[in-house]
């Protein structure tokens, strides 16, 4: 029984963390809000160069063949940075879904996985539990569900309508498309299992990012409590303000091992992985939401403005 990450995992984390700190600043995020696609091709290329798009792609398809715990700390940092690009979705949901297709889909895997690994192709995914598809506009291929079956549809064969999100970084689309026998890649029990796993991995991906968001909101808020003075003292010196932040820290601390175990359970396909992921999703979401609420509170009126960076993270919680 060992609950710690190994040297390689920690080093990979550290290098990605410093990359994100330098490149994905709040200024970068705000700038992307104003561009047409809201996405940065140069940034995606850099992520691919760091090997991040290849993390979960099997080695025989040009990837690094790593698993969920290997990527977990990085997913957390993507949340911490509020990375707008769909990296976590690609690594934790799209790639494992394609990689789990049967041998009959070998040609499909051979066609797409190396392209995803190298960053040349992007794939977006949709499930009937949420009719909107994030990042469909920059994807080359869409993985779609209908009546339990799995379809792979090139983006140029569909019609997209953008839906504005509360979070200007989220690019959400409804998709008009037609299911055909040609673009169907899995049906029946096989598809059912693939979708169940995808939902599980999706929830795990969200959980990891929520944990990062909660940490970021604390950091931003704690900094602010030094700057802002009232009654001649920094507001952070008041016990009531401290306790708002301490309550979030407790939530984060106890979400951490639940999240790690969930990733382990998914990677090792343990029988109660779905339950463990649900636990992780619940507690990390709670941590992020409490962080957001308490973060706004300790920012005072500034917390309710567009101007402070807090909102970028609060809206993702």
């Amino acid at each position: 029984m060992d609950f710690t990450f190994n040297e390689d995992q920690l080093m990979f984390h550290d290098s990605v963390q410093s990359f994100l700190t330098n490149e994905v600043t709040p200024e970068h995020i705000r700038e992307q809000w104003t561009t047409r696609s809201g996405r940065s091709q140069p940034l995606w290329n850099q992520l691919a160069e760091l090997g991040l798009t290849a993390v979960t792609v099997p080695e025989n398809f040009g990837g690094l063949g790593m698993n969920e715990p290997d990527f977990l700390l990085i997913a957390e940092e993507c949340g911490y940075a509020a990375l707008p690009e769909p990296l976590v979705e690609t690594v934790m949901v799209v790639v494992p879904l394609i990689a789990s297709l049967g041998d009959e889909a070998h040609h499909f895997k051979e066609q797409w996985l190396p392209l995803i690994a190298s960053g040349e192709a992007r794939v977006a995914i949709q499930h009937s539990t949420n009719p909107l598809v994030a990042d469909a506009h920059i994807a080359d291929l869409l993985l779609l569900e209908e009546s339990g079956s799995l379809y792979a549809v090139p983006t140029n064969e569909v019609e997209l309508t953008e839906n504005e999100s509360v979070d200007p970084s989220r690019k959400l689309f409804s998709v008009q498309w037609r299911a055909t026998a040609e673009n169907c890649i899995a049906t029946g029990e096989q598809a059912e299992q693939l979708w169940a796993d995808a939902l599980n991995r999706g929830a795990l991906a969200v959980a990891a990012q929520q944990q990062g968001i909660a940490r970021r909101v604390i950091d931003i808020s704690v900094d602010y409590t030094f700057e802002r003075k009232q009654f001649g003292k920094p507001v952070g010196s008041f016990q009531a303000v401290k306790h708002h932040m301490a309550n979030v820290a407790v939530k984060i601390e106890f979400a951490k091992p639940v999240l790690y175990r969930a990733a382990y359970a998914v990677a090792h396909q343990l029988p109660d992985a779905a339950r463990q992921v649900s636990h992780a999703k619940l507690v990390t979401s709670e941590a992020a939401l409490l962080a957001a609420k308490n973060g706004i509170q300790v920012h005072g009126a500034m917390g309710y403005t567009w101007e402070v960076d807090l909102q970028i993270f609060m809206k993702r919680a």
Partner: protein
Amino acid sequence: MDLNYTASQKAFREEVRSWLTENVPKEPLKSFDTEEGFRQHRAWEAKLNQGRWGMVTWPEELGGRGCNLIEWLIFEEEYYRSGAPLRVNQNGIFLLGPTLMEFGTEEQKARFLPMMATGEEVWAQGWSEPDAGSDMAAIRSKAERVGDHYVINGQKTWSTRAVWADWVFGIFRTDPESSRHKGLTFILVPLDAEGVSVRPIEQLDGLPGFAEIFFDDVKVPVENVLGGEGMGWHVAMSTAGFERGLMLRSPARFQETARRLLELYQENREQADLDPAIGEAVTRAYMDAEAYTLSTYMTASRLMQGDKIGPESSTNKIFWSELDQTMHETALSILGARAELWSHAPDAGAVGSWLDGFLFSQAGPIYAGTNEIQRNIIAERMLGMPRA
């Protein structure tokens, strides 16, 4: 990361389980806050020690098994699952024990640890004073060095187990000119020494679970100082770290309470489901007990790789004490009208112990440093917020 138990960890679990199955008293013992119950518990500690299960993490030469922290967690899980009695000497084995290991001289370790493990010497803690609760730096009880002795005068209060215990450990002011954290010394005092008087304090449950201790020119030899004169604050902080951190509240206790809560819910489902919030609260309790367990395994893994516990141990204190309260509140909601019955009331049945647990859980956010103090520690030392 490997969340499986190793073969030797599994074998260890089996060994613990079979010993406990054979040796745990069939009838529950009386509360250790009664004289008879205290005697029964002392006998149980002795029996545990005969099986070398008194304190499994201690080195073999001190009667332990040299277990690592993961094995300790396994032991605790089996211990609580077996329904074995609570440890009457928890102040000794979980708080003073680790502190002695860290700061004690060889003589002190040899003198005190084995007697602690056998239950022959049960320890009370003497932190608080009438004007110093969570603010330990406000300690006023004095110990004056006279030759090879200290002469102690003053008063301690809220001393858990002090009514029938044999010894008390606490911090005393050895430098009369000092203030706050300086000039304090950690001293071990026998409760039968001349000049010591103990006045029981009745708890919410009517039992004398803690006491006031008065020191009137009590003489103790200098050998009873732990960690050196003037080092009291440092030593005490380390003890308090054990208390808030791993040792005092092993997750097994809460896992077991969560399991019993689920059982209680299932047995009373028809009534409990009249309030849909109850089912959710039971789920929540189960999840939180699990989270606390995982967190402890994670901390244990880190410590075994040479890390140290930092201020994040204060998050533990808040988490388990609030979890304990909500689990017992949920149990009382399920019990409905039966909730107010003492466990010895004829109609309380087997479920009366929830009330005892509920009352005791109200102390959780207070002892071992109030949760308000823990939140300040988290804010200032873990998050780096400005000090007042």
